[in-house]
């Protein structure tokens, strides 16, 4: 890592990053600025405020503020200096870390999803972060922050082409827009959410005022905070899902969204483990629904969207016909929709609150299950993705002669539940689902680049700079 490596090759935009003789590349030199930008701005604002005597004890603390800024910025610069990446045939290699080197190899065949993330500041500077998702823990994800926009797009095209077993030089295939969510509908959905939360505050306030008018003063401040938080949640919904567009391309399903910062997610269709449609109670009069897809892998704990499973919205709020159209794209193996069967009437004693929704069915490629108490939730799991079939029977179910069959897909709570089926039927169903998923798997297996892919990524150690 010498200074000469930092020399930038002149020329066209995609070749703007530094390339060393053995193919190693640097991130964009402005990356440290973007990475530390938010923290630096916050500290500077704080310093400005305290310097002008608005908060704090006056001008005496300035020295510390600037030391902190320098520390954060210095850390980001060092991180940039020690980070390099290259595409080595069918693996993407990323090396980082000053004291503890972290060398990561991401085999393209095991890519689960590729995200192009552009926070506001990066977008202003024409930069983008590339996030490569693998199965396994989120810490194993490959993150390249930041690359010039064209370079990031070119690398994405290259990785996805290699993932599909094509020549890496294949240009990014054309995509066709399937659906987009109008801002009005998005705002409406956010408003419904905010109103639901705000109603709680109003009820609490009203009850307090009725019982003891003096008490309203005591709880007034938390209530106002609650309302502000409601507004914040609604704003976050709108800003992250603004201009939500779903497009289909041979690379996979591409989702674009975002108001200030934008995200473009690409999910190879073969990587979709399950699709879920959620119909909240309040949306039902409007015939709206939400569609989510599950992808193998977990988000890291440091992830801004929080830890947990990779669950991507395919349609944050949309009409049933749009959802049906997207379902057809997300589940290409499906041939028609399975007939749903309801559990017997005696199941009401076991599940009185969800009995009205319970239904499930399967054909030879797909299992569908409907569950939910207040919100109706429909899950589709392609049989080729089934990891295991389970039958569970609790004491009450045994008394009623019922049993539940689970069809598990990769992930933590990704499954189709055939709830409260008659006992003999459930027994037969287990055998049948196992046999059907075996043949479905066999039909699906000759996909290029997938035969050897296993969930755990190799050589994905991790550490901090």
């Amino acid at each position: 890592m010498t200074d000469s490596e930092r020399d930038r090759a002149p020329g066209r935009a995609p070749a703007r990053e530094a390339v060393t003789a053995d193919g190693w590349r640097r991130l964009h030199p402005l990356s440290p600025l973007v990475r530390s930008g938010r923290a630096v701005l916050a500290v500077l604002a704080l310093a400005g405020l305290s310097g002008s005597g608005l908060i704090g004890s006056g001008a005496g603390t300035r020295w510390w503020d600037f030391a902190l800024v320098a520390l954060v910025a210095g850390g980001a610069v060092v991180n940039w200096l020690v980070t390099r990446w290259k595409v080595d045939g069918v693996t993407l290699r990323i090396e980082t870390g000053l004291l503890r080197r972290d060398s990561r190899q991401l085999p393209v065949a095991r890519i689960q999803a590729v995200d192009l993330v552009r926070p506001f500041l990066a977008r202003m500077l024409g930069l983008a972060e590339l996030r490569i998702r693998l199965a396994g823990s989120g810490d194993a994800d490959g993150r390249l922050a930041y690359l010039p926009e064209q370079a990031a797009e070119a690398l994405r095209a290259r990785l996805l082409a290699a993932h599909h077993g094509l020549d890496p030089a294949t240009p990014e295939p054309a995509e066709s827009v399937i659906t987009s969510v109008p801002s009005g509908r998005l705002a409406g959905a956010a408003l419904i959410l905010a109103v639901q939360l705000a109603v709680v505050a109003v009820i609490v306030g009203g009850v307090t005022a009725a019982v003891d008018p003096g008490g309203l003063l005591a709880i007034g401040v938390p209530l106002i905070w609650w309302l502000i938080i409601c507004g914040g949640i609604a704003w976050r919904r709108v800003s992250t899902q603004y201009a939500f567009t779903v497009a289909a391309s041979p690379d996979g399903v591409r989702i674009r969204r975002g108001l200030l910062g934008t995200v473009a997610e690409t999910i190879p269709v073969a990587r979709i483990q399950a699709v879920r449609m959620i119909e909240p109670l309040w949306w039902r009069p409007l015939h709206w629904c939400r569609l989510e897809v599950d992808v193998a892998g977990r988000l890291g704990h440091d992830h801004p969207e929080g830890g947990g499973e990779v669950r991507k919205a395919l349609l944050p709020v949309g009409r049933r016909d749009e959802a049906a159209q997207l379902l057809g794209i997300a589940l290409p193996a499906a041939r028609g929709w399975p007939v749903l069967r309801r559990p017997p009437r005696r199941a009401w004693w076991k599940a009185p609150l969800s009995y009205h929704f319970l239904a499930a069915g399967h054909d030879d490629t797909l299992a569908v299950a409907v569950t939910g108490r207040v919100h109706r939730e429909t899950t589709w799991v392609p049989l080729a993705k089934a990891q295991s079939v389970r039958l569970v029977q609790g004491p009450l179910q045994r008394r009623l002669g019922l049993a539940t069959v689970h069809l598990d897909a990769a992930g933590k709570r990704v499954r189709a539940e055939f709830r409260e089926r008659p006992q003999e039927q459930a027994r037969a169903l287990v055998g049948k689902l196992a046999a059907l998923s075996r043949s479905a798997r066999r039909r699906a297996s000759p996909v290029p680049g997938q035969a050897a892919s296993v969930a755990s990524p190799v050589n994905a150690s991790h550490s901090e700079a």
Partner: protein
Amino acid sequence: MPGTPEQGVRCPSPRLWRMRYAEVIASGGALAAVAGTAAGLAFGGAAAAIAVAVVITGALAALWFARNRFRSWVYQERDEDLIVERGVLIHRLSVVPYGRMQFVDVSAGPIDRAFRLATVKLHTAAAASDARIPGLERDEAARLRDRLAALGEAKAAGL
């Protein structure tokens, strides 16, 4: 499936029952001694007798439960998948295809080792799949592990 003579159906080693029996007797005995002494010192002889009787009743119930649990545990290696069935109160049956296996885990705690037993667990990419077979004799555990590993490799399927 329990009780029916089916092809290739196996159960954990009878030593598992002996191990559970020993565990219940040992912990029940210790608990009875502690509870009896404490109650005797605090409230007198009658209380001590009641405390010991309660613990013994509890231990007998635990023994009955452990016996049923041990009996309910069966597994069957089929051509394409492994079936594990278990449970007294909540009955569970799992079918895990070999091709979906991510790794096999063979574990043996100190008590398991004293009884020369091991637990084999099959992991898939789904967190919910539970194919765990406790109380296998060492040879059987090694055989099962090797067979599962070989079959998993031969039939491996991508995610």
